[in-house]
């Protein structure tokens, strides 16, 4: 073994000292021969005989040297180096070709690498600062199979009974207003379990994380760990920060730690600025103290499995535990389970919203890569034609075909290696590009970084090799067809569209056209779907209604003070010029937060045994329906009189009325919510609550006054713009309390647009890449047509001489180009019909076979190919018949 390595090392060393060793060899052999000649002379031979005899007994000198060289170095590496040098020289000699080819590959490989890095950074390894992400899984509750949040007591019970889980990590995103000095702004943070920092292996750079027990006790531990950005930005990197205090939601918290740079929390998409232990939950969560309420489901959680434990094993154990909870606490847990998810499927953050888009992107970039490869393949073909003479000569003087193929593949490798290097650069620049596609929203720092780690690098290298193989294949096919005798005769010029080589090139163009057609169809479908979503009525007015809120909880208002503030503000706002009506409501439809859901009972409704009827609801003030533009089908809306002293009332939506009262008018009927009976006084039309794509679902409303919440949104019906309204509103708020800030004022349309941002991102990305693909395909078509024209000047000249006019030639070339396009479109349409189903999830009310999308893709493709053929066609008409025929 040692000998083997010694040999190998000496051989590698020899590669670098070739010239010296070569001189040594010459000298040694010369000495040998001289000695032999001398000896022979001594034996009495003539000078000539002595020399001949010496050479004879030596054997071939050159052959010996060749054997010696093979033994000395590593022949394979040496020829490869030779190929590399030669390849680089060839590329330098035709810089136009090289730059175009490398550019195409850079785009192709770069698109792949960028999407890989997003997939890695957002789905698979979203938290770079967290150790052993492969053992980290998301945990949610399930209700009738659907993902739901979990409750604190449930989680504590799981923690006690699961042996395969190393740690349960609680994290719940929340927002607060941070006032430092005279600046106040909204910021996001997390409510976490005390084990949070230890369990994810993140160590604060200053101070400490949370200590065991700090998540216990109602409001018992007002401590916080702040993010590095917050420390550097708002606290100016104060080295004495530990032990200082900061008001969070009006409670003084002691800063106990500063998280390390590059740690943004564990919520895909948004950067967290501070963390508080779960004991402070009541202070940050709107609807009260929940740590002892098994029915209050508010927790987002992760688990870290013990080393070697698989998802399936852990799920089995946890499901068994959930079953026991169901049996033990039927009132709250009937029909509920617990489910683990791989990080990339995490249901409660932006991984979930981006997953379908990124899946589509993975397919799209493969298309772009193929198109880029086809383009470069075409370029290589042209060159292989130009290099045919070189190849023939090399074959004729004895190069093996294998050696020629190796040369061609090496050249392909050089191209794709440059392309890959450029592509990684592109991916590096695009790391943060995804964030730019999302509409900005006040107070939330979006954070969607691409991650270029070894897995992305390996995958990109794989793509590069694939590209190399594809690239090498084309000229290799051509080379294997070279026949020596034929090649010595000059080639006759091709006919437009004829000849074997032209066939390969045309095939490549057809493939390109078909691939970009598929992408165009996809982009068209997504665009149409986005338009449907945008123009679809969500069941409330999107124009002429503004939405804002005043952070009363953060300002330390208690319930009575908040109530009188709301009343006071409402009066003032209604008195503003241009305001038609205004109302408070706890949750904004289509906002980020989830509506609370509650168990209900209805007189005369017998639920099936496995179902615990639970319905989502909203707490809204008087005039809410009029302000939002949600029509009432029957009954009345809430009045000022529906306050804490009056009888409890509720408004249900149409779907709820139909489901629980079976079509009977529910007005005057009773519904039980959280043990309290309410009388239904109105039926509202269905609208969209959580997502514009949801199907109609049961929903009800209760008066804000009878279910008070200090955090509530303010809705204003007015024709005025948000900007105008902001000034007026800020003045009114300031007049009531100088310390209060105002959240941003936006239209409900803006709210809808924000909720559809994943669709918008998908459209933008597929659109951009579809455009790129179209450009590449157009370049490819242009290349093929102009080459065909340049190769068939003789034929064109002949046709002209025989009386063909310019328009005939123009038609001839255009027809040829369009024939290729048509072939590509037909192929592409067939492929698209099969593939667009994959868009399924992203499409809203658009058939995957939508004729409009296919039609417009066809039109765009035709226009692009006409543009690509026009210049070559025009050049064809400029053929000089006399010269063409003489050549």
């Amino acid at each position: 073994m040692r000998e083997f390595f010694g040999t190998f090392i000496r051989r590698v060393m020899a590669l670098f000292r070739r010239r010296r060793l070569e001189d040594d060899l010459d000298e040694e052999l010369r000495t040998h021969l001289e000695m032999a000649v001398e000896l022979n002379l001594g034996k009495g031979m003539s000078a000539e005989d002595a020399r001949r005899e010496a050479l004879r007994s030596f054997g071939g000198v050159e052959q010996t040297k060749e054997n010696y060289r093979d033994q000395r170095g590593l022949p394979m590496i040496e020829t490869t180096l030779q190929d590399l040098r030669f390849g680089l020289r060839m590329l330098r000699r035709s810089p136009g070709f090289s730059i175009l080819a490398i550019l195409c590959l850079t785009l192709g490989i770069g698109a792949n690498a960028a999407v890989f890095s997003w997939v890695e950074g957002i789905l698979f390894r979203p938290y770079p600062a967290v150790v052993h992400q492969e053992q980290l899984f998301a945990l949610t509750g399930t209700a009738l199979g659907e993902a739901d949040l979990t409750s604190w007591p449930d989680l504590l019970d799981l923690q006690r009974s699961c042996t395969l889980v190393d740690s349960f990590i609680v994290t719940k995103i929340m927002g607060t207003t941070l006032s430092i000095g005279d600046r106040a702004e909204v910021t996001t943070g997390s409510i976490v379990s005390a084990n949070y920092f230890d369990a994810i292996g993140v160590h604060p750079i200053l101070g400490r994380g949370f200590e065991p027990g700090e998540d216990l006790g109602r409001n018992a531990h007002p401590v916080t760990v702040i993010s590095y950005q917050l420390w550097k930005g708002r606290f100016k990197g104060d080295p004495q920060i530990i032990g200082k205090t900061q008001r969070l939601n009006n409670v003084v918290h002691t800063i106990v730690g500063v998280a390390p740079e590059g740690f943004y929390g564990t919520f895909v998409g948004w950067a967290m600025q501070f963390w508080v232990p779960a004991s402070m939950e009541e202070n940050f969560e709107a609807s009260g103290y929940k740590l002892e309420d098994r029915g209050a489901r508010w927790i987002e959680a992760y688990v870290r499995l013990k080393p070697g434990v698989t998802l399936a094993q852990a799920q089995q154990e946890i499901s068994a535990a959930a079953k026991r909870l169901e049996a033990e606490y039927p009132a709250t847990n009937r029909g509920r389970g617990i489910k683990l998810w791989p990080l990339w499927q995490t249901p409660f953050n932006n991984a979930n919203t981006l997953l379908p888009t990124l899946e589509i992107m993975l397919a799209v970039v493969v298309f772009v890569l193929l198109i880029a490869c086809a383009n470069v393949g075409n370029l290589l073909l042209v060159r292989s034609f130009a290099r045919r003479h070189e190849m023939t000569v090399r074959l004729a003087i004895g190069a093996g075909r294998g050696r020629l193929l190796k040369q061609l593949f090496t050249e392909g490798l050089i191209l794709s290696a440059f392309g890959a290097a450029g592509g990684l650069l592109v991916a590096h620049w695009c790391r943060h590009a995804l964030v730019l596609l999302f509409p900005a929203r006040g107070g939330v720092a979006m954070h969607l970084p691409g991650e270029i780690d070894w897995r992305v690098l390996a995958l990109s290298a794989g793509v590069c090799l694939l590209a190399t193989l594809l690239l090498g294949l084309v000229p290799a096919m051509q080379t294997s067809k070279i026949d020596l005798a034929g090649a010595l005769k000059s080639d006759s010029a091709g006919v437009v569209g004829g000849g074997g080589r032209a066939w390969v090139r045309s095939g490549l163009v057809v493939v390109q056209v078909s691939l970009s057609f598929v992408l165009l169809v996809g982009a068209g479908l997504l665009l149409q779907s986005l338009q449907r979503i945008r123009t679809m009525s969500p069941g409330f007015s999107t124009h002429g209604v503004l939405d804002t809120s005043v952070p009363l909880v953060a300002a330390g208002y208690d319930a009575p003070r908040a109530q009188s503030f709301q009343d006071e503000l409402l009066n003032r706002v209604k008195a503003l010029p241009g305001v038609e009506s205004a109302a408070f409501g706890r949750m904004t439809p289509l906002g980020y937060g989830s509506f609370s859901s509650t168990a209900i009972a209805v007189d005369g409704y017998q639920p099936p045994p496995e179902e615990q009827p639970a319905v989502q609801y909203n707490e809204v003030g008087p005039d809410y329906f009029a302000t939002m533009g949600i029509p009432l089908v029957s009954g009345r809306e809430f009045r000022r009189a529906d306050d804490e002293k009056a009888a409890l009332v509720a408004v249900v939506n149409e779907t709820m009325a139909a489901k629980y009262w079976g079509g009977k008018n529910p007005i005057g009927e009773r519904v039980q919510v959280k043990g309290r009976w309410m009388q239904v006084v109105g039926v509202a039309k269905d609208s969209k609550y959580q997502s514009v794509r949801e199907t109609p679902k049961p929903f009800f409303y209760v008066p804000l006054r009878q279910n008070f919440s200090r955090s509530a949104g303010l809705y204003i019906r007015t024709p005025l713009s948000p900007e105008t309204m902001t000034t007026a509103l800020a003045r009114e708020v300031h007049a009531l309390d100088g310390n209060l800030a105002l959240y941003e004022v936006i239209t409900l349309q803006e709210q809808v647009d924000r909720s559809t941002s994943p669709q918008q991102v998908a459209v933008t990305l597929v659109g951009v890449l579809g455009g790129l693909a179209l450009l590449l395909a157009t370049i490819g078509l242009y290349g093929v047509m102009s080459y065909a024209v340049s190769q068939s000047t003789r034929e064109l000249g002949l046709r002209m001489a025989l009386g063909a006019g310019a328009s005939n030639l123009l038609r001839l070339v255009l027809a040829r180009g369009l024939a290729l396009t048509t072939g590509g479109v037909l192929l592409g349409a067939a492929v698209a019909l099969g593939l667009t189903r994959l868009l399924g999830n992203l499409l809203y009310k658009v058939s995957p076979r939508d004729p409009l999308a296919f039609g417009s893709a066809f039109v765009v493709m035709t226009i692009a190919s006409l543009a690509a053929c026009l210049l070559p066609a025009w050049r064809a008409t400029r053929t000089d018949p006399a010269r063409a025929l003489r050549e």
Partner: protein
Amino acid sequence: MPTSKSEVLQGTLDLLVLKTLDSMGPMHGFGIALRIQQVSEDLLQLNQGTLYPALLRLEQRGWIASKWGVSENNRKAKYYSLTRAGRKQLGEEAENWGRMSAMINRVLRTS
């Protein structure tokens, strides 16, 4: 005229070179070739050229070492000498060879 010359058996050249260097001390390539031919009484047909890749191979394995020196006729020549590893290798290979030839002889005698 003696009977026809034998080709050098595959793999035995290494052994011959090692043995030569062992008994003669450091030598240059031509010397080694000459010596092998003398000792074999010219019965061995050796293309002297094939010696050089063999020398390189032995050197790469660390069994012999080379050094430029000056020959008796005042020529610059590369001298090869046996290393310690080479001496050990020679012992093993000689033993192998002995076993092998004894066995072949036995086979030839019995049949």
